[in-house]
């Protein structure tokens, strides 16, 4: 992802949003910052952090949306980044956003933030849904008891935004927070805290607690700051306390926080009974039950993937942009310009020829790929915002465990149907290297991207039975290769746990912002590669290398039972997945392929090497060794499977 920075960000006071996933942080972020948003990786990590600027009473602030975190003691890379931001950025205000329905569970993190000495404001979000559940929360009383500003909000409904701005504006007169743990625990903490002599961003109390909980990063920080000698003394005291407490100190601290929170919430939260199971909950149960969940999944795939991406994105929009705008207007115009002004033949070819940068590279990126991935990202963001993916993840976890992944991997795999390149980037979110490699391999092998899928579906639907053979081959190899990879790859089985957020009505604006952000970062990543691809093709054509390659591949084509002309489709396929499929389309319309040949070619091409963009991203994410290994493996397997399928279909007399 490209990194951009807001030029004056360094001098602006910062507002940092923290909280669990699914509490409406991004909606609040968007509401505060409007359109001035950048998404970039946090330095040294692959975790994305959104930054924007907001203005409160004439004063400009930089707003940071941190990745979801459950506690101040990080486990995942996301949580580590979220804490690093708190540790390093000196916030003016920390907005701790919590879900009102789960106030009891999320309040302990507020305590952690408060005891860290951060300027915390508690935003009790999603109040509307809590009220629908019969919960009443007296935020004024809570504010009085906890001693920090507490705001009741429903950011999706614009409720509470005014109050949040007011609290940012009047940072000077915020009340003082107060609460304490049991006396013995407090004295333990003080013992350690009193030994810390240097200056830290987080309070000594908070550092002492983290030291007692054996947080290795904090240990390293204290060791660096205090020096080796003083640290040895601190470590000794910490070890003493931990030994004194033998029984799990973690648990004790968690239970103590829970006790403090129940005290704070006494009289604050009232729950009245509500009748009946709401529709959203019934729908949610249907989605998670395998018997009803699978049909629902198929419906989502049909409408989301086939209708919106295939028919609308790849059909209507592409026909207009590519067929009408480029072919009829832009291309003839640049070709005319080229003929008039470009004296050298090679330059003409490079810019506006058959594989020209403008006529092919730009046209493909803008008119073909952008609308298809754009419509896919729209559907993907829409589904994502309803909270469907965690439900899908729990549904497929068992199957995915068999192939060395866990349910969480369903997100990059589904994203692969939109664009494998994007999906390969997203495999970062998987927990272990082993999972990332297996997911990258499966994406490269068996997941056709939306553009390719669209063309192949169109081609094969004309031949009865071909679609069935194709799907069976691809699905079968996906499972088989995953199954074998899980056996061959060292490393432990991933475990699966996931919070399942309530189903929600997506907010159009949020969906739109997400889609556009994804399209933008995708485009910036992919566009140079398209230009590179057309330059390479051009060079191939000018030097005759392309023709040579086609000839060299004739034996392979023979093994597949395909005419030699099909080789071009495969070479194109490496540059763009759908490009290869489009090559098939040409062969098919000129009547060169039988039903069997068409099916074999489609299967081989789907399995065959990822496109050049995907390969380059694979290299970037996984390194040369792994990506080259995958490239070779996938190519060999694609041709072997194709040749076998050809024999089988001919021998069985299927499709002929």
């Amino acid at each position, binding site marked *: 992802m490209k990194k951009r920075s807001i030029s004056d960000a360094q001098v602006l006071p910062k507002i940092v949003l923290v909280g669990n996933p699914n509490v409406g942080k991004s909606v609040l972020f968007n509401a505060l910052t409007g359109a001035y948003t950048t998404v970039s990786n946090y330095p040294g990590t692959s975790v994305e952090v959104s930054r924007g600027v907001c203005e409160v009473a004439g004063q400009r602030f930089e707003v940071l949306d941190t990745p979801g975190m459950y506690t101040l003691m990080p486990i995942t890379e996301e949580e580590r980044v979220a804490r690093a931001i708190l540790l390093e950025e000196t916030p003016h205000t920390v907005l701790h956003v919590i879900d009102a329905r789960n106030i009891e569970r999320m309040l302990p993190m507020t305590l952690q933030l408060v005891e860290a000495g951060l300027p915390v404001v508690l935003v009790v979000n999603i109040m509307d849904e809590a009220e629908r559940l019969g919960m009443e929360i007296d935020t004024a009383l809570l504010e009085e008891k906890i001693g920090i500003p507490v705001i009741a909000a429903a950011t999706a409904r614009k409720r509470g935004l005014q109050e949040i701005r007011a609290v940012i504006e009047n940072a000077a007169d915020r009340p003082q927070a107060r609460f304490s743990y049991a006396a013995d625990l407090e004295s333990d903490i003080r013992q350690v805290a009193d030994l810390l002599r240097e200056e830290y961003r987080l309070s000594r109390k908070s550092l002492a607690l983290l030291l007692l909980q054996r947080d290795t990063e904090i240990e390293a920080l204290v060791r660096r700051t205090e020096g080796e000698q003083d640290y040895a003394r601190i470590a000794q005291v910490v070890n003493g306390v931990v030994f004194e407490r033998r029984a799990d100190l973690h648990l004790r601290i968690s239970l103590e926080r829970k006790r403090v929170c129940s005290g704070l919430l006494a009289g604050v939260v009232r729950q009245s009974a509500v009748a009946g199971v709401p529709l959203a909950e019934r729908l949610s149960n249907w989605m998670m039950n395998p018997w009803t969940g699978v049909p629902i999944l198929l419906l989502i795939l049909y409408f989301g993937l086939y209708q919106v991406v295939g028919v609308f994105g790849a059909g209507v929009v592409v026909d207009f942009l590519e067929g009408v705008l480029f072919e009829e207007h832009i291309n003839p115009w640049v070709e005319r310009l080229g003929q008039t002004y470009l004296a050298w033949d090679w330059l003409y070819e490079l810019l506006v020829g058959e594989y020209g940068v403008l006529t092919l590279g730009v046209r493909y990126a803008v008119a073909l790929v952008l609308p298809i991935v754009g419509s896919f990202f729209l559907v993907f963001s829409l589904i994502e915002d309803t909270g469907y993916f965690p439900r899908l993840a729990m549904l497929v*976890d068992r199957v995915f465990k068999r192939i060395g992944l866990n349910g969480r991997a369903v997100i990059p795999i589904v994203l692969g149907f939109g664009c494998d390149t994007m999906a390969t980037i997203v495999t970062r979110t998987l927990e272990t290297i082993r999972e990332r490699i297996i997911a990258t391999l499966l994406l490269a092998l068996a997941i056709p991207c939306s553009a390719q899928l669209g063309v192949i579906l169109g081609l094969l639907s004309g031949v009865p039975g071909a679609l069935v053979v194709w799907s069976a081959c691809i699905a079968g190899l996906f499972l088989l290769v995953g199954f074998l990879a899980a056996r061959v790859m060292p490393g432990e089985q991933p475990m699966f746990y996931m919070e399942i957020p309530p189903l929600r009505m997506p907010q159009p604006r949020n969906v739109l912002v997400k889609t556009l952000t994804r399209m933008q970062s995708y485009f910036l990543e992919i566009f140079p590669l398209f230009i590179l691809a057309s330059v390479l093709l051009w060079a191939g054509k000018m030097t005759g290398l392309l023709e040579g390659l086609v000839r060299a591949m004739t034996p392979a084509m023979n093994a597949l039972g395909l005419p030699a002309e099909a080789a071009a489709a495969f070479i194109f396929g490496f540059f763009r997945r759908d490009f290869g499929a489009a090559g098939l389309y040409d062969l098919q319309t000129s009547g060169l392929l039988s039903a069997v040949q068409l099916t074999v070619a489609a299967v081989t091409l789907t399995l065959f090497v990822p496109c050049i963009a995907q390969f380059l991203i694979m290299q970037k994410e996984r390194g040369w060794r792994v990506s080259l290994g995958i490239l070779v493996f996938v190519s060999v397997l694609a041709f072997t499977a194709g040749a076998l399928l050809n024999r089988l279909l001919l021998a069985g007399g299927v499709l002929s």
Partner: protein
Amino acid sequence: MKVSPKAEEILEALWIATEEAGDNAAHLSTLGIGPDDEALAELNRLAYIEVSGDRVYLRKEGRPEARMTVRRHRLAERLMMDILDVKGGEGNAKACELEHLLHQGVDTKICTLLNHPSTCPHGNPIPPGLCCEEAREQGRVGVVALTELKAGEGGEIAYLAADDPKKMQKLMSMGVLPGNRLQLSQTFPTFVFKVGHSQFAVDQDLAREIFVRKE
């Protein structure tokens, strides 16, 4: 009649092979003993087993003893893991030594101390003893792994048995904390439960490590 430790190991293996793995006999080779083994002769004398060639059968007379042996072994495992906090291969070895000592009411005491557990740390069933039946009749609640609950059941979270501190911390930070109420809503394909107003999905391995005091 108390049999030798070696004979107890054989009975245990026979119980697992016949009652749990669904075979009708065990092989001498898999038991790792010869046909003229002393413990084998001892069991034969008691008419607990029948040997025919390479195959060893568990006779009706031997079943109660075998059942109690398995029970003692798995109770010992639970004790090791939950109370003594000995884990991994070492825990297993210690449990093997300990099980032979749990006679004459000691097993009942441990079973009661552990609140009549229904599974060993590996998820295998512990055959219930008289104490368990009594506790059930008196309506005393037992602590069971999440995997033992049926959809729709719930209870108070008693403890977490995760051996990986990170995993433990993750569960705790999601609100899966001793003392909180948990309601199981689904067991297949993954375990889905509610704590407070939040819903979580965990796989079988994690579900095995969450222990609930059943209502």
